[in-house]
């Protein structure tokens, strides 16, 4: 008898909740209440929402940096944070402070070693990702001399260095100017074209609908709405050109939730 083998979801969050203890007496604050979300391999998901809506907490849980208080988080069928799951992800934190005394190439070499890549593979992959991120010319410069846009690109490069099938990006456009954002958007689209699953969080609504296969708007630790851009934006009247339809939906959903 043949057994059906199910392809696991790239990301599966079921009833995921995270609470933090806020003081000595043990009072709890819920950062994420109950979040259920499934993402197929190869899709790009944008997590939108205001500060404190639970975007970073969700990404950190997927990265294994914190444990769920309720529910579970799976990465390709493996519990988030397990060795197997961590081998399958690349993670870009929000505005990280990299070791500024290292050059871009040295930093990526260090990351490659931590991912247990073979020595000969590290050099090859570092050159590839430097070219991909447009940093080849600055590869020998110290990270201390990089602009914010270049630092974000080196962050993206370290996230995909070991060729993970899932890339998690926490506010990748944070602090970038429009041209830096444009370059970043192109890189994210390129990751999608290479078949990577990408989950990113953002405050910025412009261009997000062009980047994503799926969108989820979060508010106070809950999903307010989730679906493809076509599904979501089709539900909104498109009468006035300003603000954009996505911005309008975002504001409507947040206002309704208040």
């Amino acid at each position, binding site marked *: 008898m043949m057994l059906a083998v199910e392809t696991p979801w790239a990301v599966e969050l079921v009833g995921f909740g995270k609470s933090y203890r806020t003081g000595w007496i043990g009072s709890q604050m819920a950062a994420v209440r109950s979040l259920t979300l499934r993402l197929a391999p190869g899709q790009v998901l944008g997590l939108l929402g205001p500060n404190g809506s639970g975007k970073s907490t969700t990404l950190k849980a997927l990265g294994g940096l*914190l444990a769920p208080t309720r529910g579970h988080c799976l990465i390709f069928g493996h519990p988030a944070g397990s060795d197997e799951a*961590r081998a399958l992800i690349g*993670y870009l*934190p929000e505005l990280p*402070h990299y070791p500024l005394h290292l050059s871009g190439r040295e930093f990526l070499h260090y990351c490659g070693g931590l991912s247990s*890549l*073979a020595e000969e*593979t590290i050099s090859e992959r570092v050159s590839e990702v430097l070219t991909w991120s447009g940093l080849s010319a600055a590869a020998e410069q110290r990270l201390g001399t990089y602009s914010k846009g270049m630092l974000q690109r080196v962050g993206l490069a370290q996230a995909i260095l070991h060729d993970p099938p899932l890339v998690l990006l926490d506010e990748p456009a944070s602090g970038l100017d429009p041209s830096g954002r444009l370059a970043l958007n192109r890189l994210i689209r390129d990751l999608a074209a290479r078949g990577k699953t990408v989950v990113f969080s953002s405050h910025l609504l412009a261009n997000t609908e062009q980047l994503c296969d799926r969108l989820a708007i979060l508010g106070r630790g809950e999903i307010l709405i989730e679906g493809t851009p076509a599904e979501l934006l089709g539900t909104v009247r498109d009468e006035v050109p300003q603000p954009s339809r996505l911005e309008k939906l975002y504001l409507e959903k947040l206002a309704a939730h208040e």
Partner: protein
Amino acid sequence: MNNVATHGAIASFRRVRLIARHTLGEALHLRLTFLLGLLGAGLVLGAMGLREFNFGGAELKFIGDFGLGALGSFGMLLAALTTSQLFFSEIQGRAAYCVLTRPVRRWEYIWGKLAGVGALLALFVGALGSLIAVIIFWRGRQLGVTSVSLPVFFCACAVQWLKLTLVAAMTLLVCSYSGSAMFASCAGLILAGIAHLRPLVGEGSRLAWLRVWPNLALFDAEALLASTQLPTAFVLLAAVGYWAAYVVLFGMLASLVFNRREF
């Protein structure tokens, strides 16, 4: 992707070594390291000014004691402050997220940090110790006396290193739980102070429970320097065993606590 094995002792050792090397590189770029190294060297060189007193053969002993005192004091500050600064700069700057979301175990991160700080302390002790040794040798030739045996002096430096790495391990244990570098530095120095005062705690005292804490007075380099002969192999092995037991204990406790830490 051509990966080497991510599991197993060799893979773990490789990652610990990488983190240690990275930590050492970062430590050598800290202004704090430079400042403490400079102050320590300044104090040791300042001891040369004392030759005006011309203590005779006892002068060499004085220079050795004075130098080891400077090495111990600044080394203690270096151990506590750099351990906490290196730990928190990565955590608060989120660069540690790039490490911990990779197949790196939390205990590998902790031991890598400790090994990196240990290497920094070895460089610090080696550099200042060599400087003091040069002064002792040079002044001894001028005075025509050899009241300080250089092998004994280097043995005393090695004992200082054991003591300083133990302070770094104590500080790392605090870091694994604490939320700020300032708290971890202060707590690390207080714990080191308690460990120095440990011999004062009597058996019948109400503070007798403090006797579980390591006794840093056992690593008294000045007492070692007073002797003209190297300690026996048994004494040295006992000291190294005592040091290793506490370093492993603190490292394991720090790993356990850090394993449960959330970001």
